[in-house]
C-alpha cells in the first residue's frame, strides 16, 4: 500500500507512466484475471457444479456438499496441493498414492501390542506419530536425493519407490498379521491396554449393581494389579459373579457411584487415541447444531461478499479521481470482516457446544483467535498507514450520502425477503436489495472515480455508432446476439414442451432402447462433425455473393454458426445425447435448458464484448438488455419448474446475476475506464476481492454447518462434516502462502522454470527439490493418518494407483506438466472437480463407471482450455 499523502498534484500512475515499453499494451481487469493459472479451473468447477446440480437430486443439498468436501479434501485435495507444488518445482512423484497407505500402516503397526508372531512395538500414539513422520521425511529425502544425484527423471525413480512401497506393504502385512489389512486401530489400542479392558468389562456387567461395595468387600482397590484379578483363581470372575448375584437394588446413588468407578477406569491413558481421534477424525453433526439466525448470516455473507467483489472489480477497472488513495480502506474492511467472521464463529461455537469439551474449547479458542487476528490487523495497519489515510477513507464514505442509505435499503430488502414467503413479498424484497446495491455502488463510485464527460456525450457517441452500424465491425455485433436470443427462446420453448408430457422416462416415452439412442447420438455427432468440417465462412462467402438481403443474412448466420460449431458442436452433442439416453425427463429437460442457456449467455456476452469495441455506450446498453433477459429467464424458470431448487435457488441466483449485470452496465455508462496500470488501486482491488471471497465462504459455511428449528422438525437427512476438511483448508492456505510469499516459494518456481539459471544465481536448487519431495511425503503421511483414524484399519492396497488422480487434479487446476507455472489454489479447485465427478455421477443415478470417461474428458478439456486461455492472455499483453 502506498503511504503517500493524498492530495498530491499528480498521483495518477498512469499519467506518470513512461512511454518506454509501449509494446506492452495495458491489460484490462478481466484479461489480467484470465492470466491466473487457476481461473480456468474455477470457471470449470462452477460449470460442472451447475450441471450436476441441475441433473441430480442430492447435489445441491448439505449432504451432497458434505460428501464433495469430504472427497475433495482428503486424500485427494491435500495430495493434489502437495503434488502441485512438486510439479511447479518440475518433478513428479508416483509413490505418493502408495505412500499414503504405507504411512497409515506403519503407524498402526507401531501402535499394536502384538503383531502376529513378530511381536509389536506397542507404542503410544504420541510416539508413533513423530516416528512415522520421520519415516515419511526419510522417504521424501530418499526420493529427492536419488533424483538429484542420479539426474534420472523423477517419475522413473518414484515409480521404483512406488513398487517398493506397494510390495513392502503387502509383504509385511501378510507376514505380520497374515492378512492384507492391519487390525483395527481402536480395537488394538484397547486390546493392548489391559486396564482399559477391565474398565470396559466392568461397564458391561455393571448395570444396576452395587459394585463399589462389592469391590471393597473383596479387597479390590484401584491399585490392585490387573494380573491379580485375572489370575487363575478367578478373583475377577468371582467379582463379576458376585456383581451379577447382587444385582437387585438399583437406586440412583449406587448408579452414580458405579458410573464414577467405571469412568475412573476408562479415563486411564489410552495412548492418546481419544485425543488424536478428535483431531483427525472428528465429525461435525450438522443436525445437532441449531441456529435460527443461520439464514440471516448466510444472506449477509453473500451480500457482503458480492458487494466487495463488485467493488474490487470497480477499483481495478475505473479511473480514479486525483487524490483518491487506497490507504486505510483495505485494512479497515479486511480487519473488520475478519473480526466479524470471528465473532460469528464465536457465537456459533458458544451456542452449539458439542458434547466434547475439548472440541468446544478448541472451537471457541480458535474463533476468538480469528477475532483477535482481525482486530490486530486493523490496529497494525492503522499504525503503519498514516492516520490521514484512514480518516480519508472514512471521510470519503461519509461524504457520500448515497452509500449508507443504499446499504440500509438493501438490508431492509433482505429482512423483507426473510420475513415473508409470499411471491409479492419476495419480489419487493428482491427489488429493494437490487435498488439498494445500485444506489450504494454508484454512490461509492461517484466519490472515487472519474465520470464520463457526460451522459449526453455517451448518447452522442451512441448516435455516432448507430450511424455507421453498417460498418463491418458493428455488423459482427448482431449475429452472436441474435443467436443468443434464439437459443434462449428455443430453450424456453423446449422446456415448456417437455414439461407437457407427464412421463418420467424419455427412453420409454420415445420407445427407443438405449442403444438406439446411442446410435442416434452418434449420427447427430457425425452430422455436427461434418457441419463443423465444412468451413462455415466458405459457405457464407458463396452465399454472400448473392445480393439479396436473405442470402446476406443467412451468410452471416452460417458464418457465425460454423465458427461456433467447430469448437462446441461435436462434444456438446455427444455428451448431451449420451446423457439423454439415461436421463429422466427432469434431467433431460435440465440439460437441454442449461445447455441452451449457456449458449445464449456466451453468445450474448460475445455480442456485448464486440459492441464495446464499436462504441462503449452500445455495449453497456446491450448488457442492460441481457440483464433484463436474464431476469426474464429467472421468472420463466420460477413459473415453469417443478423442482423446488429451480424455483428458489436457480431463481435467486439468476436474479442476482441480472442485478449485478445491470449495475455493472450502469456503472460503465457513468464512469471512465482506466487506460494504464495503477498498482495502488490494484492492490486495494485484490484485497477487496479476497475479503469478498472470504465473506462469501463464511456465509456459505454457516449455511452448511447449521440447521434451523424448522428443518429439524421437517426431519432433514442428517449430515456430518469431517474435520479433514479443516486439515485440507489449512494445508492449502499454508501451501499457498509459502508458494506466493516466501523465498522457498520463489525458489520452487525458479527450479521448475529454469533449474540451471536458479542455481547460478545462488538458489540451492538440489535442496529445494529434495525439500519438495519431503513435503509431498509429509502430505502423504498426514493423509495416511487421516485415513487410519477414519477407517480404523488400512488395506495393504490403500492408495495404490491414486497418484494419477492427484496429478490429474493438479493439471486440471492449471499446473504445467513442465514445471514453473501453476498454483496450489488451482490444484485445490481441481480436487473439487474430481470430487464432483466422484459424487455427481452416482447421485445423478448414472452408472458410476462413467466417471472415468468423465475424468478423461475433463482432463483433456482442462489442458486444452488452460493452454488456450494462457496463449490468449499472453497475446493480450
Amino acid at each position, binding site marked *: 500500500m502506498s503511504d503517500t499523502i493524498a492530495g498530491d498534484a499528480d498521483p495518477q500512475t498512469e499519467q506518470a*507512466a513512461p512511454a518506454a515499453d509501449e509494446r506492452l499494451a495495458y491489460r484490462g481487469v478481466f484479461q489480467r484475471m484470465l492470466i491466473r493459472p487457476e481461473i480456468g479451473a474455477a470457471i470449470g468447477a462452477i460449470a460442472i457444479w451447475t450441471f450436476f446440480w441441475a441433473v441430480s437430486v442430492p447435489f445441491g443439498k448439505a449432504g451432497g456438499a458434505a460428501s464433495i468436501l469430504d472427497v475433495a479434501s482428503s486424500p485427494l485435495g491435500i495430495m493434489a496441493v502437495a503434488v502441485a507444488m512438486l510439479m511447479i518445482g518440475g518433478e513428479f512423484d508416483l509413490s505418493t498414492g502408495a505412500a499414503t497407505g504405507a504411512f497409515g500402516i506403519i503407524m498402526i503397526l507401531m501402535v499394536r501390542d502384538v503383531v502376529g508372531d513378530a511381536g509389536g512395538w506397542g507404542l503410544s500414539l504420541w510416539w508413533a506419530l513423530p516416528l512415522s513422520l520421520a519415516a515419511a521425511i526419510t522417504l521424501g529425502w530418499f526420493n529427492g536425493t536419488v533424483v538429484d544425484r542420479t539426474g534420472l527423471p523423477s517419475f522413473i525413480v518414484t515409480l521404483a519407490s512406488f513398487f517398493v512401497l506397494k510390495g513392502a506393504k503387502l509383504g509385511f502385512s501378510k507376514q505380520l498379521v497374515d492378512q492384507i489389512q492391519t487390525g483395527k486401530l481402536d480395537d488394538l489400542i484397547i486390546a493392548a491396554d489391559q486396564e482399559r479392558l477391565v474398565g470396559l468389562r466392568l461397564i458391561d456387567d455393571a448395570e444396576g449393581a452395587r459394585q463399589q461395595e462389592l469391590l471393597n468387600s473383596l479387597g479390590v482397590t484401584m491399585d490392585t494389579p490387573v494380573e491379580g484379578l485375572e489370575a487363575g483363581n478367578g478373583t475377577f470372575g468371582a467379582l463379576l459373579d458376585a456383581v451379577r448375584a447382587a444385582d437387585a437394588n438399583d437406586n440412583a446413588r449406587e448408579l452414580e457411584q458405579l458410573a464414577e468407578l467405571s469412568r475412573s477406569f476408562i479415563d486411564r491413558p489410552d495412548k492418546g487415541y481419544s485425543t488424536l481421534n478428535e483431531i483427525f477424525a472428528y465429525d461435525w453433526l450438522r443436525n445437532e447444531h441449531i441456529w435460527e439466525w443461520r439464514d440471516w448470516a448466510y444472506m449477509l455473507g453473500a451480500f457482503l461478499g458480492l458487494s466487495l467483489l463488485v467493488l474490487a472489480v470497480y477499483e481495478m477497472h475505473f479511473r480514479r479521481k486525483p487524490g483518491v488513495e487506497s490507504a486505510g480502506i483495505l485494512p479497515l474492511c479486511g480487519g473488520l470482516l475478519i473480526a466479524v467472521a470471528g465473532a460469528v464463529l464465536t457465537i456459533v461455537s458458544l451456542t452449539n457446544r458439542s458434547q466434547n469439551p475439548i472440541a468446544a474449547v478448541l472451537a471457541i479458542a480458535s474463533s476468538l483467535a480469528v477475532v483477535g487476528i482481525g482486530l490486530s490487523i486493523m490496529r497494525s495497519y492503522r499504525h503503519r498507514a498514516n492516520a490521514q489515510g484512514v480518516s480519508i477513507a472514512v471521510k470519503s464514505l461519509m461524504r457520500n450520502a448515497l452509500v449508507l442509505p443504499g446499504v440500509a435499503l438493501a438490508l431492509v430488502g433482505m429482512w423483507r425477503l426473510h420475513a415473508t414467503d409470499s411471491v409479492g413479498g419476495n419480489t419487493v424484497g428482491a427489488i429493494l436489495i437490487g435498488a439498494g446495491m445500485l444506489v450504494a455502488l454508484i454512490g461509492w463510485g461517484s466519490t472515487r472515480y472519474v465520470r464520463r464527460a457526460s451522459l449526453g456525450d455517451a448518447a452522442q457517441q451512441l448516435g455516432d455508432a448507430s450511424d455507421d452500424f453498417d460498418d463491418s465491425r458493428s455488423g459482427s455485433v448482431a449475429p452472436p446476439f441474435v443467436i443468443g436470443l434464439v437459443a434462449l427462446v428455443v430453450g424456453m420453448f423446449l422446456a415448456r414442451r417437455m414439461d407437457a408430457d407427464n412421463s418420467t422416462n424419455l427412453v420409454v416415452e420415445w420407445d427407443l432402447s438405449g442403444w438406439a439412442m446411442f446410435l442416434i447420438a452418434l449420427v447427430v455427432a457425425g452430422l455436427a462433425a461434418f457441419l463443423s468440417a465444412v468451413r462455415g465462412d466458405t459457405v457464407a462467402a458463396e452465399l454472400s455473393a448473392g445480393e439479396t438481403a436473405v442470402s446476406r443474412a443467412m451468410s452471416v448466420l452460417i458464418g457465425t454458426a460454423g465458427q461456433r460449431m467447430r469448437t462446441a458442436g461435436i462434444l456438446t452433442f455427444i455428451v448431451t445425447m449420451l446423457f439423454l439416453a439415461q436421463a429422466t425427463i427432469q434431467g433431460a429437460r435440465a440439460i437441454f435448458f442449461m445447455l441452451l442457456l449457456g449458449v445464449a449467455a456466451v453468445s450474448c456476452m460475445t455480442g456485448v464484448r464486440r459492441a464495446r469495441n464499436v462504441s462503449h455506450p452500445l455495449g453497456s446498453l446491450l448488457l442492460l438488455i441481457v440483464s433484463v433477459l436474464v431476469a426474464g429467464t429467472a421468472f420463466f424458470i420460477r413459473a415453469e419448474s417443478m423442482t423446488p431448487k429451480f424455483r428458489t435457488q436457480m431463481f435467486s441466483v439468476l436474479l442476482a446475476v441480472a442485478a449485478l449485470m445491470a449495475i455493472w452496465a450502469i456503472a460503465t455508462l457513468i464512469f471512465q475506464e482506466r487506460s494504464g496500470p495503477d498498482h495502488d488501486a490494484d492492490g486495494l482491488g485484490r484485497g477487496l476481492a479476497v475479503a469478498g471471497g472470504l465473506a462469501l465462504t463464511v456465509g456459505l459455511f454457516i449455511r452448511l454447518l447449521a440447521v434451523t428449528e424448522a428443518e429439524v422438525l421437517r426431519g432433514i437427512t442428517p449430515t456430518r462434516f469431517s474435520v479433514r476438511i479443516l486439515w485440507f483448508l489449512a494445508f492449502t492456505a499454508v501451501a499457498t502462502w509459502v508458494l506466493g510469499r516466501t523465498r522457498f516459494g*520463489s525458489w520452487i518456481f525458479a527450479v521448475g522454470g529454469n533449474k540451471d539459471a536458479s542455481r547460478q*544465481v545462488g538458489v540451492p536448487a538440489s535442496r529445494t527439490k529434495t525439500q519438495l519431495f519431503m513435503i509431498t511425503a509429509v502430505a502423504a503421511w498426514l493423509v495416511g493418518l487421516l485415513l487410519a483414524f477414519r477407517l480404523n484399519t488400512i488395506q495393504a492396497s490403500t492408495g495404490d494407483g491414486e497418484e494419477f488422480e492427484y496429478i490429474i487434479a493438479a493439471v486440471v487446476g492449471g499446473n504445467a506438466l513442465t514445471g514453473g507455472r501453476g498454483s496450489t489454489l488451482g490444484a485445490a479447485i481441481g480436487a473439487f472437480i474430481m470430487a464432483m465427478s466422484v459424487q455427481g455421477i452416482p447421485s445423478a443415478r448414472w452408472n458410476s463407471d462413467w466417471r472415468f470417461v468423465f475424468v478423461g474428458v475433463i482432463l483433456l478439456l482442462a489442458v486444452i482450455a488452460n493452454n488456450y486461455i494462457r496463449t490468449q492472455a499472453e497475446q493480450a499483453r
Partner: protein
Amino acid sequence: MALLELQNISKYYGNIIALQGVTTEVNAGEVTCVLGDNGAGKSTFIKILAGVHQHDDGDFLLEGDSVRFNSPREALDRGIAAVYQDLAMVPLMSVWRNFFLGSEPTKGIWPFEWIDRAGAKQIAKEEMAKMGIDIRDTEQPVGTLSGGERQSVAIARAVYFGAKVLILDEPTSALGVKQSGVVLRYIVEAAKRGLGVIFITHNPSHAYPVGDRFLILNRGKSMGNFAKSEVSQQELTQLMAGGAELEQLQHELAEAIASKDAASAS
C-alpha cells in the same frame, strides 16, 4: 594494484589442455575484453573466475589475495558476479522476482519469513532506472522482455548485489545491431560506476569501442594481453583467428570465389 589479477592460469581436463598460461588483469572502472573464437577456452576462463571450476596452475589474485573458489556462491560473496549467456533468468517469473532470485529480502522471523514484495519491487524498479531502463511493470514475466532488456536486468542485478567484478559471457551474441548497442552502453555504465568488467565476446567490433584491455585466447593459449593503446581493431581480429590461419582462410576463400566466377562466366 589491480582489482583482479591472473598470472599464468592453467586448467586441464585430464590430458586435455583447456587453458594454459593465461595472464591478464582487471581494474576498477575498466573493461577487460576476452576475445576468442569458438573453443578458445573462454568458457573455461570465466568458469574459473566465477568459481564453477578451479585452476590447476598459476595465481588468481583478488585485491592482492590469492584465492581459489569452491563454488559460485563463494565467488559471489567476494564480489565476482557472472552474467551467463543463458542469462540465469527464469522466463516465467516476474522481473522483480528474477532480480532478487536467490537473495530475496525478507520480513518476519524464521520460520515465518516472507518476502518484502513492495520493497523488492521498488528497489528493482529503481535499480533498473539507474541503468537507464524504464520497466513500467515489474510484475511482467521476464520472458516477455526483449533480449537486451533481459541483459540489463541481469547486469542491474549484479551491480545491485555489490559486485566488484562483473563477468559478461557473450552478452551481445544473440542480439541485433541496435540491441547490442544498448547492451554495450550498459557495460560502459557499469564500468563508470566503478566496477571491473570482464566482457567476453567473439566480436572485435563490439569489444574494441568499450574495452580498455584485451586478452586474446586461441585454443586455450593466450595470444596476447594488450592495453587499448597497444593494439588496433584490425590486429585484434587478426590475432583472434590465429593470424596466419586467417590469411590462409582468406586465400582459400578468394580461390573459391574465383572458381565460382569462372564457372558462372563459362
